[in-house]
């Protein structure tokens, strides 16, 4: 019973990287989590959006995050996006696509901002803007229309927001809020949520029963626990 995590993981690149995702996790046609976190931490300067099976993306990103930290301790340098990419790629290829994790990897390192997409079988692409997940077509259409090279941060955030929103509104696998993570040289800003697009509606009917609906035939008084006294204690070994 896997919870399919269908995110519109969308990213735009300027002097940094903007990652965006929705917050719905589904199990079949049931929404399992209204506000799940799809933008995972890999390193201080590298974050990863995950689409596909929630457990797979969660565990894979945690694994690669640990490896990146160990590598950072080994080399004494800040981690690079391509290191995380290579680790992800080799990890996913080893399992031949059985690990269903479609990831969008973004970050800023000594080589500048970088944005990659990683498919479950291990193939990768380096692109200025990418989308993954069930809402990726809706989001990509917004990107194709609005993207231009050399956008500033506000324009990029706005475009990513609209792309995710398109996924949320038009795709059943995406919903709830838009999360955005802005990665710049030196710092990261997390907007969780950037905007609430779909709120859970208020329940229309009232299902509470008025007091007196069930007829009480007899009642006994409950003894409070503090009123009990301990008379005998025995220690038993667990075999």
């Amino acid at each position: 019973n896997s919870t399919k995590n269908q995110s519109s993981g969308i990213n735009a690149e300027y002097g940094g990287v903007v990652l965006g995702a929705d917050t719905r996790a589904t199990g079949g046609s049931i929404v399992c989590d209204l506000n799940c976190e799809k933008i995972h931490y890999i390193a201080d300067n590298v974050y990863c959006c995950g689409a596909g099976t929630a457990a797979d993306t969660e565990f894979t990103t945690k694994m690669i995050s640990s490896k990146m930290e160990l590598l950072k301790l080994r080399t004494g340098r800040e981690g690079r996006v391509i290191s995380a990419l290579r680790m992800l790629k080799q990890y996913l290829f080893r399992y031949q696509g059985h690990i269903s994790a479609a990831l969008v990897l973004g970050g800023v390192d000594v080589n500048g901002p970088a944005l990659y997409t990683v498919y479950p079988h291990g193939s990768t692409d380096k692109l200025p803007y990418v989308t993954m997940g069930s809402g990726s077509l809706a989001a990509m259409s917004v990107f194709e229309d609005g993207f231009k090279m050399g956008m500033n941060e506000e324009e990029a955030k706005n475009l990513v927001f609209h792309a995710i929103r398109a996924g949320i509104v038009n795709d059943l696998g995406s919903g709830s809020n838009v999360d955005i993570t802005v990665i710049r040289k030196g710092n990261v800003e997390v907007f969780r949520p950037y905007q609430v697009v779909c709120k859970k509606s208020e329940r229309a009917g009232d299902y509470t029963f008025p007091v007196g609906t069930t007829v009480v035939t007899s009642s006994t008084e409950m003894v409070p626990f503090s009123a009990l006294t301990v008379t005998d204690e025995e220690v038993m070994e667990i075999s």
Partner: protein
Amino acid sequence: TRQCLSSGINAEYGGFVNTRSELTARHPLEQSEALYDFNQQKIRLGMANKITGSALPLTIQAERACAARIGRLPGLRSSRLHFEVFAGTDETITIEDVFDTPSPWDEEPQYTRCNNTA
């Protein structure tokens, strides 16, 4: 992966029988996972052999084979640090470090991994 002997002595076969591999359907990755470390080693040393010559891979293989045999008395756990340095697993975390690790509440002695490919 652990290749466990999962049945008793069978007179017909004249010894222990590994029933699991014969009866159940195998996962498509079982074979590749069992041989993963060995194949990775083969690829890397093969590349080193072609690039730098056979001296380096031969010495590495020899020392790794010795390191695989370093250990304590039979049945005692060992960190196998020397071997781990050759395997490259001392500086990284792998799936074997997360899943299916021996439980601290196990009563029987904890053996090292059976798949001792040197």
